[in-house]
């Protein structure tokens, strides 16, 4: 905000600075409810888990580099592949997208000052951290879950897996699910209610459509997993018989409940990546997205249709042909909304004037992998073919193409793209491009040959193989690819870490981006926007008139909302301004809640049910105390005193 401000406006902005001043030190971070700080905490935590999951992968690839290797015992290998899957899905991709990118960027993109429920946002983070620690305690004590990330019974039943391994899984995923559900609710309400005046639903960034779809899916899908895990623990701990054939139960009940969650989960993973892609493409190809409304609709449709295809994970189970055919048809139909999006991206790139900077390269890489992975996915909808390659490395190839190439590549691209916004510095472009190429080549060399060994009969989840299978050569190649990929990823981190200190400083909008976050400073002030922006199109930053009007309002001291921690709320469809909300700035209840919840889950794990019931009571007490203070009752500035009313405000 370089323009000269009239004294009343200057006073207002000064008050904003004072009222929104962030607490420093560890306590500040512990009690924060600021979406940007929470987003950053999510970011660094998920990076740590990414390193853990990646190390697990490298260990496995080293074990498989040749036949009959003895680096890992079967038990160790089984724990590693299970933890790799659990880590990457529950502790990396979901928290990185919904928690890090979603939290940091959604309020900025919609012109708001925070999420709808800032304290619940903090809870999501601390509960996520707690669940991750819970799961890794399992690995650290040598009793990590060891029956795969989808943990089929009866292998995961007490009879065949008597230790604590599976209990860590069952309780851990319920624990983790609480975080994701809270985060999802927050995202939906924020997007519905806190958009800047004028940002009707059809003017919302595609990023927000994608996250909205992912959040809705999370809310509707997670309960199925929670239920599956509940039944599992009831069977294991209390001798119930949900999955026990001898007593009238059915192991397929687990598979159905799991995949009713599991399939929407993969769309939850990919949709935010679509959102990141649709943010980066318009910026670097200098044109609007082709058929924007169709793309938005496609994103929502993918999420919705994703609930109707889960049985395609069970084509080899022996179900009636009619049942499998229906789900194969549904699995094919869901290709259409994805294809719409892919061709919209390609056409947009083709008709624009693309600048192949690092972020766009990652998106191009994403498109290439997503198409290849999508094609292998289509082949899996051909039931007889699936009945050959199900549970072989062909499937491992497919899902790594779509998850790694499809979700992680946009995340890495997004890290580069928004790095200047978050840090105020630019990364090193050449090193960035190198990091992309290393990762791109590494990903191909690691995962493409897996299609071939799968076709060649190699099942998944085997800790070794005999030489006579002939799988050694391709496995060695895959392992080498994994090291190349790891080096590419390391280079991304090194580039960003070094640039954090040495990078060239940049202003608010180094890319000429189209969405609102590029209008505020880099990094944004604690209050995001000094004046609440108003919006009349889907590409707000490319609307000079609107941005000028915002500036005029700021200079006139109108729409600054500096009385307290304030953000406007609007109507859902047309974003008509409806009210002004007071936001809570700091709270110690979220980390306390997470801590108590952690203790509760440990008690359940150790079968101390009475203590666990007591912990539930403590949780109720925490919630009672938490809600006793209403959000607006925060001290209005850091001195704790209420500032005097401004004379001008009563008139305007």
């Amino acid at each position, binding site marked *: 905000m370089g323009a000269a401000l009239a004294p009343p406006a200057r006073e207002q902005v000064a008050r904003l600075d004072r009222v929104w001043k962030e607490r420093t030190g560890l306590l500040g971070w512990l009690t924060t409810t600021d979406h940007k700080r929470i987003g950053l905490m999510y970011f660094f935590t998920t990076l740590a888990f990414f390193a853990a999951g990646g190390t697990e992968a490298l260990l496995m690839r080293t074990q498989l580099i040749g036949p009959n290797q003895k680096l890992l*015992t*079967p*038990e160790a290998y089984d724990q590693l592949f299970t933890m790799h899957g659990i880590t990457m899905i529950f502790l990396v991709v979901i928290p990185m997208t919904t928690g890090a990118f979603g939290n940091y960027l959604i309020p900025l993109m919609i012109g708001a000052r925070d999420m709808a429920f800032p304290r619940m946002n903090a809870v999501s983070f601390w509960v996520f951290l707690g669940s991750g620690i819970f799961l890794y305690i399992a690995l650290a004590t040598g009793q990590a879950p060891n*029956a795969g990330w989808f943990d*089929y019974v009866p*292998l995961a039943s007490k009879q*065949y897996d008597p230790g604590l391994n599976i209990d860590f899984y069952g309780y851990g995923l319920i624990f983790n699910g609480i975080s994701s559900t809270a985060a999802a609710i927050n995202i939906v309400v924020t997007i519905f209610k806190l958009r800047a005046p004028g940002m009707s639903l059809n003017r919302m960034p595609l990023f927000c459509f994608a996250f909205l779809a992912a959040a809705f899916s999370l809310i509707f899908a997670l309960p199925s997993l929670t239920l599956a895990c509940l039944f599992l623990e009831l069977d294991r701990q209390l001798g119930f018989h949900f999955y026990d*054939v001898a007593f009238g139960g059915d*192991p397929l009940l687990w598979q159905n409940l799991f995949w009713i969650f599991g399939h929407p989960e993969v769309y939850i993973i990919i949709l935010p990546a679509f959102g990141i892609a649709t943010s980066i493409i318009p910026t670097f190809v*200098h044109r609007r997205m*082709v058929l924007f409304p*169709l793309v938005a609709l496609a994103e929502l449709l993918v999420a919705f249709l994703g609930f109707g295809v889960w049985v395609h994970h069970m084509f*080899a*189970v*022996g179900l009636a*042909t009619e049942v*499998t*055919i229906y789900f*194969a*048809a549904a699995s094919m139909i869901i*290709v*259409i909304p994805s294809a*719409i*999006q892919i*061709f919209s991206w390609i*056409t947009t*790139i*083709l*008709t624009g*004037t*693309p600048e*192949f900077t690092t972020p766009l390269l990652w998106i191009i890489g994403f*498109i*290439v992998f997503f198409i*290849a992975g999508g*094609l*292998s996915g*289509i*082949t899996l*909808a*051909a*039931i*007889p*073919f699936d*009945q*050959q390659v*199900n*549970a072989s490395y062909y499937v491992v190839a497919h899902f790594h193409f779509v998850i790694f190439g499809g979700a992680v590549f946009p995340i890495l691209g997004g890290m580069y793209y928004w790095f200047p916004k978050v840090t105020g510095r630019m990364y090193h472009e050449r090193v960035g*491009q190198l990091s992309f*190429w290393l990762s791109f080549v590494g990903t*191909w060399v690691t995962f493409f040959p897996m299609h*071939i060994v799968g076709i*060649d*009969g190699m*099942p998944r*989840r085997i800790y070794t193989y*005999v030489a006579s*299978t*002939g799988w050694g*050569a391709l496995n060695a190649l895959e392992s080498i690819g994994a090291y190349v990929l790891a080096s590419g990823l390391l280079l991304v981190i090194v580039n960003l870490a070094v640039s954090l200190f040495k990078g060239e400083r940049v202003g608010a909008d180094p890319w000429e981006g189209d969405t609102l976050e590029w209008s505020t400073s880099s990094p944004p002030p604690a209050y995001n926007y000094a004046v609440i922006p108003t919006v009349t199109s889907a590409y707000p930053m490319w609307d000079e008139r609107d941005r000028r009007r915002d500036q005029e309002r700021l200079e006139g001291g109108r729409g600054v909302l500096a009385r307290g921690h304030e953000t406007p709320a609007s109507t859902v469809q047309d974003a008509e301004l409806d009210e002004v909300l007071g936001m809570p700035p700091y709270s110690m209840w979220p980390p306390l809640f997470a801590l108590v919840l952690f203790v509760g889950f440990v008690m359940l794990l150790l079968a101390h049910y009475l203590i666990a019931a007591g912990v539930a009571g403590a949780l109720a007490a925490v919630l009672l105390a938490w809600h006793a203070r209403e959000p607006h009752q925060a001290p209005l500035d850091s001195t704790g005193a209420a500032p005097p009313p401004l004379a001008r405000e009563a008139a305007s």
Partner: protein
Amino acid sequence: MRPPRARNGGPARRRPATAALALATICLGGCGGGQSIVAPRSHQTSLIALLWWWMLGASVVVFAGAVGLLTIAWFRRRTPGLPLFGRREEVAGGMVIGFGIVIPLVVLVALFAASDLYVIRFSEAPAASSTRLTVDIIGHQWWWEVRYPGTEAVTANEVHIPIDTRVNVVASTADVIHSLWVPRLARKIDMIPGRQNRILLDTPDPGTYVGQCSEFCGLQHAHMRMTVIAEAPRAFHAWLTNMARPAPAPTTAREREGERLFMSRGCAGCHQLRGTEAHGEIGPDLTHLATRKTLAALTIPNTPAELSAWVRDPQAIKPGNHMPDLGLSGVEVEKIASFLEALH
């Protein structure tokens, strides 16, 4: 078209390399047979392999097309608008509708009809009346029990079938979920507690076909392999008749000593030798162990040295499997091994 130079080498340059690699490896590993799904030896798997090749072809075309468009985008990066059509939004929109909706719909309907309406008829469970022989295969952690209903024949890890015969395989499990997969002969079928799933085995080609468990079932999932031996009907019947007989009696003193040890040192508690007092049901039936080509579910070849090593220390060869170390002395091991090697 010269491959683009400079830093944006473009994905187009990767494809020829990976395709060549793919071809080479398929020939090295797959064409020879082994466990490859593209080396089919039955009508069912031939149809699936054909389906695969068509799908691969179509995928290559689509992929190449998309990468081609991206490559064009790179070349035309300074010119806005489409090649030929310029900046006409309707054409761009039409491309999205055409490539994103219309063409995929057509291709998918065709694929659905071919695979899920036609080929599936051959991969489904066979009609009970259409098969001439039934084999029960029961999955265990980490071996396969094989029975021939209607006869006394019981064996493990090695299935014999006559060629040119529709064989009904009934797949079930004694413990956790396993999956029976003999890629060159049939699609896989999961073995689920409480279910009796069925698949068809029918091949005109005599030979040895390798199968492997294809659903993670615990510590030694990696070493749960099997063979299906398809042979002329006469050879098959000879084998089956032999399998149905009780265990041959030991002929030498050493073998008799081995038999005594087998009964007294715990082996009989887990293993069955039909026609003797050994009735254990926990481990594989060993009545005609010497006829098998491999041991421990294809983990090791069935030779005297390997058999002795296995009996002495099964955990060293297949760690975590359910056969305990019985603490046998070297001499005892040799005697038991001689006894077992005589069980033809």
